[in-house]
């Protein structure tokens, strides 16, 4: 039973291992962005340690500078060739670079408006910044690998930081409850994801996604079932993380209970990561070999219905909400459905439909979601925070600039031209038609109309005059928040104006 290698090395295992595992090729630039973000987090932690109980300006400065350089190193790699290094663990291609750039942008915007909010909420912990940065590095790892081990580790780095951040407001029961709920369901979903990876490993003998395509054989029942169960369990886990219906129940509770800036990061950053992983998995699981049934003919119908359910349930339930953060939570579920339609359209017909639409939609979705949450974060003051619709009343008088931006975000979330939300939805609609997914396109269009009602409700609440003493005086506008609003609102129009060059640059296709 106890055979140490040295004693039983009759068949030369050590030698074969040395041959099979040579020192890996190392391409430093492809891990530089992730390394920069992680190290910035460590520096931020050290700065916090050196200057305890002071303001967090130095930490924010360091974090933003670190993110800026990470973004710089990402943009400088767009011209470099695609390449897998570190033994196939790190992949640099255009998709990974764009997604990483999106994550860096989202993190920067979140950090920018966090300080004022955290101080208004009396939880100005310097640890927030390193944890957000590490969480972002997790999303970047997910996007930049085709190895299931790395995708899993990325998900965990992202999620474990978010569990902590959700429970950061330690005097608020609802914050702690949301952290516990998020944690238990997240870990449960991880277990299913892992079990799926285990079956996929058993069927393909590898953790690399490219092995799926060559291992698919619908005529061998044992292997076909193993891959189907593997895929099903993995999708179960990923659907939890991406909050698709019917795996969405945690989303509104967690979005409502977590501090608003964490919710903004969760809604944007964690969704980007989950969608990137989903795209990698789905596009690796499409086969068109002439063996009978293709792999996608098994999972496509399931995802088709999940997309329909996600869009419809997300919007319908959002109609009856009384809390702004919950409404935005359900709205993010509906938007996850739209993004899923974009991914399915691409996977269904990769020659005709590119992934550019989905990336563009993720970009515009993150801008409007972070902007909307940033404005909602204005309701916090003196350690209290009200996020019901009534609590937005009178915001128009107190900070007209924020409300002006809120109108832009709401318009974009609805999809009113000429905002980026409109163009994103239009492109997904066209893609769905182009790839023969007509029902999805129709459901998307109907849902866009449905969603007008509750989005307008959010904007309207900000214009109603405050009456009665219940409404807490909201925090004054601060510089960081103004900058976030300005960047998000500006970005929503800028991506439309610069549409063609942006798409060419992001996707690399003419």
């Amino acid at each position, binding site marked *: 039973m106890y055979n140490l290698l040295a004693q039983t090395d009759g068949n030369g295992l050590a030698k074969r291992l040395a041959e*099979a595992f040579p020192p890996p090729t190392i391409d430093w630039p492809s891990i530089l962005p992730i390394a920069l973000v992680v190290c910035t987090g460590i520096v931020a932690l050290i700065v916090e340690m050196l200057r305890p109980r002071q303001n967090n300006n130095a930490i924010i400065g360091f974090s933003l500078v670190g993110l800026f350089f990470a973004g710089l190193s990402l943009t400088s790699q767009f011209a470099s060739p695609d390449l897998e290094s570190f033994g196939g663990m790190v992949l640099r291609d255009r998709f990974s670079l764009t997604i990483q750039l999106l994550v860096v942008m989202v993190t920067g915007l979140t950090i920018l408006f966090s300080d004022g909010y955290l101080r208004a909420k009396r939880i100005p912990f310097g640890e927030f910044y390193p944890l957000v940065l590490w969480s972002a590095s997790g999303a970047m790892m997910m996007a930049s690998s085709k190895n299931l081990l790395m995708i899993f580790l990325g998900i965990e780095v992202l999620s474990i930081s978010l569990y902590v951040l959700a429970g950061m407001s330690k005097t608020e029961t609802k914050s702690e409850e949301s952290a516990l709920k998020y944690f238990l369901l997240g870990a449960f979903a991880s277990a299913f994801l892992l079990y799926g990876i*285990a079956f996929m490993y058993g069927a393909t003998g590898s953790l690399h996604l490219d092995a799926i395509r060559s291992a698919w054989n619908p005529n061998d029942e044992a292997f076909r079932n193993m891959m189907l169960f593997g895929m099903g369990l993995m999708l179960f886990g990923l659907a939890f993380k991406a909050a698709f219906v019917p795996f969405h129940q945690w989303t509104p509770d967690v979005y409502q209970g977590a501090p608003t800036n964490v919710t903004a990061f969760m809604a944007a950053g964690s969704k980007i990561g989950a969608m990137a992983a989903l795209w990698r998995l789905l596009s690796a699981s499409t086969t068109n070999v002439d063996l009978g049934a293709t792999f996608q003919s098994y999972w496509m119908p399931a995802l088709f219905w999940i997309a329909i359910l996600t869009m419809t349930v997300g919007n319908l339930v959002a109609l009856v909400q009384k809390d702004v953060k919950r409404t935005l939570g359900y709205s993010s579920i509906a938007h996850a459905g739209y993004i899923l339609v974009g991914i399915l359209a691409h996977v269904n017909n990769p020659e005709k439909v590119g992934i550019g639409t989905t990336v563009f939609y993720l970009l515009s979705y993150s801008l409007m979601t972070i902007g909307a949450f940033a404005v909602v974060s204005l309701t916090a003051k003196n350690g209290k925070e009200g996020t019901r619709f009534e609590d937005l009343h009178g915001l128009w008088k107190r900070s007209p600039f924020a409300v002006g931006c809120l109108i832009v975000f709401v318009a974009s979330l609805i999809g009113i031209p000429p905002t980026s939300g409109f163009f994103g939805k239009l492109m997904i609609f066209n893609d769905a038609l182009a790839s023969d997914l007509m029902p999805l396109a129709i459901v998307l269009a109907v849902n866009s109309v449905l969603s007008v009602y509750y989005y307008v409700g959010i904007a309207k609440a900000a214009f109603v005059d405050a009456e009665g003493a219940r409404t807490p005086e909201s925090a004054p506008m601060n510089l960081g928040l103004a900058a976030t609003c300005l960047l998000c609102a500006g970005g929503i129009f800028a991506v439309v104006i610069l549409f063609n060059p942006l798409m060419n640059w992001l996707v690399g296709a003419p």
Partner: protein
Amino acid sequence: MTGNNLADYLTLGLLMFSIGAVGVIVRRNPVVIFMCIELMLNAVNLTFLAFARYMPSSAPASGREASFMSGQMMVIFVMAVAAAEVAVGLGIIMAIYRLRKDVDVDEMNLMSG
């Protein structure tokens, strides 16, 4: 069940995984729910190791050595993830207990539409 074929190990893993999943759904104490999740993770580890030892795939895409070692590597990293998860998860449970002195997941209904 004699322990000399793949099905035995997979069955043990499947039983542990299912029992853990049942526990997560029916139990109400978050500490116990969390233990059940750990049980599920261990079941997954066993499945990985069983596949690494008795890989049914006859021609793995990436070479024989790479194939059986990657299953073991996954187990090592799942253990690392479990350790980090336990630290954070028990921290959250401690924090919530300080606030409310009872930790029943069903009693949590502060948040509602």
